[in-house]
């Protein structure tokens, strides 16, 4: 561990801060891992600085226009009629009476737009509006547009739907039964299994045979939802010339563009998708939704703009949230703890439709090997359909649930072997520049640095010994790894995953065009910072034009923590393209080689003699005179290194981030209430382009992890969502948050833009098991299912030590 610690932000004192530096009171530490080259961001003028976000002014003044803030002349308002049945055949839909209501302009049923679709090409099982069958309470069946929202809502009451109810399939166990009706007609299945995965790597039998001890556990991770503060909203408008424009609160404008073209059967060139600032996503806005396609269809049909904004209850129905997953883990270890083999089984409750579920299924297994060395690994995954709102990707997509299970399991192993849980994890940590048994390429890896930093800053070992087990106070640790973007696009193609264009104006202004969608993670500020750094200008000189399919090159979207790595690299390449031209002209004017030209503080200069310089403006004008319009494209495609097997597309990433969380809790042994007293989280981000933004992502991940660990759950009463509102669906408030210490570890990834990896999702994953492990330290028993609510804690206390709270027998695989 390096002793070098730079409090707050690392800046180069020789270079003036552009804008103003935040006066951060939160204790934050940047630690340069000593084994890595050039980890200190010396010489950067923008990268590494805690600058305000480029959209901060718009967001604090209320000027930022979100989708629902858009108002167009003659705009109509749409509403969806949703199923009251969990599982039923639709015998008839009669919307004619709704049309008679004054103010209603048009109605729509499933027959109007019958093309099936799905975000994954492998599971196109959704209809814009249900035609033959409804599959969950809340499944859209019909739609109305009217002059105002109230009239549209009233008109829904006049639509008559005749249902023939079918038995509802509400649990994983029910879905595995062969005597219940199938949600989707799949002749290859006798039950409601959607996807099965069976993968094996290395010699499992030999691995278990070599083990001194074999540990086995079962866990359950409850489903929960994103609950972004902004309810999904769309405005669609068909221009007089027939071009359709869709403004949607989406993390993936490109995928909406593709699927709108497919479902509306229009050329993609006649559709423009724009994502205005998105009011939170967390994975919940990464695929096309019925309301978006309905608005598009009805805008064309009526010739008037149509807006549909979901109510909060409808947001719970749209869902695509965290899959409930039950998990079984079996691990063989040597007496010193070295893992010899691991077998992981997962059962995912997918809800009514495919969504990203095939990928989610693979993700529950794929990244198990990226944290600790596992020489032999078997994974069996099974996703089922149930009559509930469809599950999909939520922050940590499919890896959060097994990380909870695995980190609790590892803690139990450490306890059983009498090992310090932090030191043990360090010993079995994966190494940098290695390949896992399932063929995943690990490059930079700061897991050991994260373990050291989090354990030292929290005084983990000391407190673990000092606090007597089972007396109400506990401390727990957990680690994890996450992707920096999926190695493969969700539809097969050989094109870049991210594209960007940088254009420099003869007035010295720089514009970057890129298809990224900013859902609050700060992608626009990241793009501006990378371009400003490359061209040596102020961040405020850079305009970001993003998320508009007409104007920007494709970026696949804000999911899988891919944007900084992929769009950042594309932006850097584009900026380098312009920089080369400027450098060439400047080198001629200054009489030095182009390689010797530096860019900083709006000047272009000889790096060996900075007095020899041009202003950026002079250099730009000379370059435009020489080359014409100054612009350059950039593209990024991740390296292809996936081994060849079915399912190998899920798991590879150009790099992995690493996180370690230490949680300190106080459990009331009388009431079972868990209070998180302090969180310490160390995250290997590669390089912090903006340390404030990285901290913000870490703190947000900690917050969401606390919610998932202690209170958030998608609960059902019979066939209905029990709590589809923000009062009963508990999320942490400002009163529930403990002090958080964040530690940024920089490993300077060799392929990341300026060395950066990701921070959006990774830091959430270790929080939940760290809290679970702290609770297990504070009480004698252990809670094996999330959320860790008082009733479960009390039952674990009753069981008095190590008892399994909940066992659902693992069904045999076909």
């Amino acid at each position, binding site marked *: 561990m390096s002793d070098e610690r730079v409090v707050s932000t690392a800046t180069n004192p020789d270079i003036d801060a552009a804008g103003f530096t*935040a*006066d*951060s*009171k*939160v204790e934050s530490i940047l630690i340069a891992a000593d084994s890595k080259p050039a980890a200190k961001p010396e010489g950067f003028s923008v990268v590494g600085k*805690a600058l*305000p976000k480029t*959209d*901060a*002014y*718009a*967001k*604090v*003044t*209320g*000027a*930022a226009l*979100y989708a*629902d*803030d858009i*108002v167009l002349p003659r705009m109509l308002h749409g509403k969806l009629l949703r199923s009251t049945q969990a599982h039923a055949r639709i015998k008839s839909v009669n919307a004619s009476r709704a049309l008679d209501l*004054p*103010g209603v302009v048009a109605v729509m049923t499933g027959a109007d737009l019958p093309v099936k679709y799905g975000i994954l090409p492998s599971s196109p099982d959704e209809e814009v509006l249900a035609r033959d069958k409804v599959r969950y309470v809340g499944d859209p069946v019909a739609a109305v547009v009217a*002059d*105002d929202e*109230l*009239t549209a809502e009233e008109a829904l009451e006049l639509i008559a739907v005749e249902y023939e109810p079918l038995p509802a399939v509400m649990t994983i166990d029910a879905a595995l039964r062969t005597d219940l009706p199938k949600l989707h007609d799949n002749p290859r299945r006798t039950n409601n299994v959607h996807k099965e995965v069976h993968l094996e790597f290395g010699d499992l039998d030999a691995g278990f045979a070599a083990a001194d001890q074999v540990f086995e556990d079962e866990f359950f991770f409850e489903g929960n939802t*994103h*609950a*972004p*503060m*902004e*309810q999904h909203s769309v405005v669609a408008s068909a221009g007089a010339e027939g071009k359709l424009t869709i403004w949607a609160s989406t993390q993936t404008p490109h995928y909406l563009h593709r699927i709108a073209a497919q479902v509306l059967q229009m050329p993609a060139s006649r559709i423009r998708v724009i994502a205005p*600032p*998105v*009011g*939170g*996503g*967390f994975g919940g806005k990464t695929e096309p939704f019925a309301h978006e396609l309905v608005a598009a269809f009805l805008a064309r049909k009526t010739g008037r703009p149509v807006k549909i904004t979901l109510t*909060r209850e409808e947001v719970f129905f749209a869902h695509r949230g965290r899959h409930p997953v039950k998990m079984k883990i079996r691990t063989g270890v040597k007496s010193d703890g070295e893992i010899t083999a691991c077998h992981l089984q997962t059962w995912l409750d997918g809800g009514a439709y495919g969504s990203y579920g095939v990928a989610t299924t693979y993700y529950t297994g794929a990244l198990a090997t990226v944290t600790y060395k596992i020489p032999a690994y078997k994974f069996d995954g099974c996703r089922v359909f149930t009559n509930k709102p469809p599950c999909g990707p939520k922050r940590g997509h499919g890896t959060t649930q097994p990380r909870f299970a695995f980190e609790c399991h590892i803690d139990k192993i450490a306890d059983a072997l009498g090992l310090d849980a932090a030191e043990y994890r360090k010993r079995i940590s994966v190494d940098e520049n290695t390949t896992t048994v399932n063929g995943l390429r690990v490059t930079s890896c700061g897991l050991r640095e994260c373990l050291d930093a989090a354990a030292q800053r929290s005084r983990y070992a000391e407190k673990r010994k000092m606090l007597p087990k089972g007396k109400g106070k506990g401390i727990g640790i957990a680690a994890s790894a996450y992707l920096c973007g999926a190695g493969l696009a969700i539809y097969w193609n050989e094109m870049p995953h991210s594209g960007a264009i940088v254009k420099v104006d003869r007035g010295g202004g720089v514009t970057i065009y890129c298809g990224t969608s900013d*859902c*609050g*993670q*700060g992608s626009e500020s990241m793009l501006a910072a990378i371009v400003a750094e490359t061209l040596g200008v102020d961040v405020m000189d850079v305009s970001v034009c993003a998320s508009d399919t007409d104007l920007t090159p494709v970026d696949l979207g804000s999911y899988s923590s891919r944007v900084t790595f992929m769009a950042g690299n594309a932006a850097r390449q584009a900026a380098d393209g312009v920089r080369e031209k400027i450098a060439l002209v400047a080198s001629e004017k200054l009489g030095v080689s182009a390689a010797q030209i530096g860019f900083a503080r709006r000047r272009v200069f000889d790096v060996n003699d900075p007095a020899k310089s041009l202003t950026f403006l002079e250099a730009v004008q000379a370059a435009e005179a020489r080359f014409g319009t100054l612009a350059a494209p950039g593209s990024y495609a991740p390296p292809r290194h996936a081994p060849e097997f079915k399912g190998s597309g899920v798991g590879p990433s150009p790099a992995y981030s690493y996180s370690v969380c230490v949680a300190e809790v106080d459990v009331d042994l009388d009431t079972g209430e868990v209070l998180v007293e302090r969180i310490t989280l160390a995250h290997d981000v590669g390089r912090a382009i903006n340390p*404030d*933004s990285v*901290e*913000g992502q870490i*703190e*947000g991940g900690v*917050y*969401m992890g606390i919610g998932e660990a202690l209170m958030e759950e998608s609960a059902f009463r019979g066939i209905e969502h029990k709590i589809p*509102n*923000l*009062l009963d669906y508990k*999320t942490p*408030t*400002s*009163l529930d*948050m403990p002090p958080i210490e964040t530690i940024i570890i920089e490993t300077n990834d060799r392929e990341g833009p300026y060395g950066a990896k990701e921070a959006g999702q990774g830091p959430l994953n270790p929080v939940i098991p760290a809290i679970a492990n702290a609770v297990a330290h504070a009480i004698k028993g252990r809670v094996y299912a999330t959320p860790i609510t008082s009733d479960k804690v009390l039952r674990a206390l009753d069981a008095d030590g190590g008892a399994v709270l909940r066992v659902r027998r693992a069904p045999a695989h076909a």
Partner: protein
Amino acid sequence: MSIAPAKILASLSINGSVVECAFNPNKTLLEVLREDVGLTGTKHGCEMGHCGACTVIVDDKPVLSCLALAVESIGHAIRTIEGVASEGTLHPVQRALAASGGAQCGYCTPGIIMSAVALLEQNPTPTRDDIAQGLSGNLCRCTGYSKIIEAVENASADLRSAP
């Protein structure tokens, strides 16, 4: 055409100006601000008083505009996010939030700012706990509240040091 009751004409005092507007009397203050006055800075996140995104200040008190009828606000002084900055100068709460990264997706931000401004007007020297209490009705899914609370602390210090 609409099934809504006939509009009424009313004068509302918003951000120091009198605004004359016609609206259906069954509309909430939130709806009238956003739809009839065009002040879209005030957000909606639940329409049930659960999330705080729609917070405005009425007569110096924070109010959930989704639970108030617009007709109830006639004769009262309404302040929205659009009226917090004066002549292009950000309020210290806005400045501190922008500087610290306390606004991520920004959707809860207007409501947070209104709650914080009302808090600081009533209690210029809040403790960290006072701030957490004052903002406990405003949900934020992005930030974990740390940078927001820190920003309000900074704003409070700023306001006190101002001449």
